[in-house]
């Protein structure tokens, strides 16, 4: 059992559990059950039962676990240990990592920031896109060891408290996803891409790259080209482009899914 998890069920969890499996509750409470087992059981219980309890269930399942302090193995236990200190979403994190550990694995496995996704793990899909020192990069091809002194921003760092980043809002409005696996990478990539355009960076489809004054103008074709490093297997591309176009233009864009 991970030490940061509360070993006891909360009152809400007990109530939900009692509704789902009344005959098992007392036995489980007597023998003790931790929250992770409970959540696993909930998952196994399946969609049908969950649907009936969805309001409570959603509240519980989306409740974040208590943030875990990164657990530091003694450096002597690692042959190729590297000490690294870097900022993640504004907070300084100090880790001792195996030299092979990618930034993606450090974020997900050591810092409990599982928003960044491992899609291909070979730099071909963009699901792991994060920003390092303000630039979008692939965390699956970045060694954690190379992040010393750098500032990393992940999808978890985009919203300000309960206020979503405009790009997150736009993805919701335009239904810029289906399964959602590529979404954190899409959003991080889109946020940084708009910054690149503002600085006037060109793309392969830019008509005249010799013209270097002012921000780049983003047609849908430009957005598609600049976002080509983020693959969406569900094919939500028209909606993703509309979401980005809305944030770029600052004006409401028609929801593509309504017009087809």
């Amino acid at each position, binding site marked *: 059992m991970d030490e940061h998890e509360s070993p006891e069920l909360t009152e809400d969890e007990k109530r939900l559990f009692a509704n789902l499996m009344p005959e098992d509750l007392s036995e489980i409470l007597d023998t003790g059950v931790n929250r992770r087992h409970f959540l696993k059981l909930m998952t196994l219980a399946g969609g049908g039962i969950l649907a009936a309890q969805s309001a409570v269930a959603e509240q519980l399942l989306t409740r974040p676990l208590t943030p875990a302090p990164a657990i530091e193995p003694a450096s002597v236990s690692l*042959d*190729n240990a590297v000490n690294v200190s870097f900022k993640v979403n504004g907070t300084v994190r100090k880790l001792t990592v195996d030299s092979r550990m990618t930034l993606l694995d450090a974020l997900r496995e050591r810092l409990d920031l599982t928003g960044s996704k491992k899609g291909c793990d070979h730099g071909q899909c963009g699901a792991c896109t994060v920003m390092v020192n303000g630039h979008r990069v*692939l965390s699956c*091809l970045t060694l954690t060891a*190379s992040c010393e002194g750098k500032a990393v921003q992940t999808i978890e760092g985009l919203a300000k408290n309960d206020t979503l980043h405009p790009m997150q809002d736009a993805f919701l409005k335009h239904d810029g996803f289906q399964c959602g696996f590529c979404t954190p990478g899409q959003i991080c990539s889109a946020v940084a891409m708009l910054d690149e355009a503002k600085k006037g960076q060109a793309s392969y489809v830019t008509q*005249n*790259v*010799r013209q*270097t004054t002012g921000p780049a103008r983003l047609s849908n074709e430009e957005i598609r080209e600049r976002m080509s490093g983020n693959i969406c297997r569900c094919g939500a591309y028209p909606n993703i482009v509309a979401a980005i176009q809305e944030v770029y233009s600052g004006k409401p864009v028609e929801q593509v899914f309504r017009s087809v």
Partner: protein
Amino acid sequence: MRPFTYTRANDATSAIKLLTENPNARFLAGGTNLLDLMKEDVERPNTLIDISDLGLAEVKSIANGVNKGGVSMGGLGKNTDAANHPLIRQHYPLLTQAILAGASGQLRNMATNGGNLLQRTRCPYFYEVSMPCNKRAPGTGCGAREGINRMHAIFGWSDQCVAVYPSDMAVALAALDAVVHVRNAAGQERQIPIADFHRLPGNQPEKDTNLVHGELITAIELPPNRLADKSYYLKVRDRASYAFALVSVAAALETEGAMIKQARIAMGGVAHKPWRALKAEQLLVGKEATEANFNQAAEAVMADAKPLAHNAFKVELGKRSIVLALQTAMNGGKL
């Protein structure tokens, strides 16, 4: 991935010394290709020397020497920064387009100019360690020669290796007569013309380049030219973006009235190195910039093609791509 020691270098001299002393060490810059190859067990270094703190990233005008008036880009500059630097965009739009045709925004933010030159082939037989490959494991044979070779070479291949070199940037550099500056452990600098930097496979496909282990790419120099008004990088691939080239063409022209004064044609996706078409360029000099003359030049390039079982399409595709790239260059780079 196999274990390795990670070392961060503070200065070029000590980085070069560390690499020179250890044949199993590698420089780590952007890491976009190297880490991928390490995950696949193709590359197995025991030490990575991180050289990203060495500077060597500047893009600047060249004030002295044979390339005076040209532009120099640091070996450790990021591809994004090179492509977007005003000096490059203004004077070498062909290079800007070629860099931006490669990879994705994320990868170009990571990849360096020197690292781009040292990209290894994406031949699937090279990447898959259970397959024979003379480039990865000399003497094991070539899986692609009689295997699936749709993506492979039509020029300059040998029975030992039919792989193609993947970089777009280097194809433009070949057309622009770039010069690669490298430094070794003795502190000596040498300059390698881009045409001599990469090799054809011959009997030693394991050697991609003529770089010696221990040498660091410090800069890439671009000589001044009069080609900026009429150039275009055309990349043809299986999807619209974020894919390696089936065929690519870097084309540039200098004209005087209706006459072609100077022509540059280099191709990607067709050989073990950027394929410069010097003979075809000469054919165009003194001629008018007409479709008929472009066709003739394209025929001349492809006369040397030796397609494999699955890539004969690259011959016709290459011809049409050369003509279209030259026409687009004539049109000021507008498709």
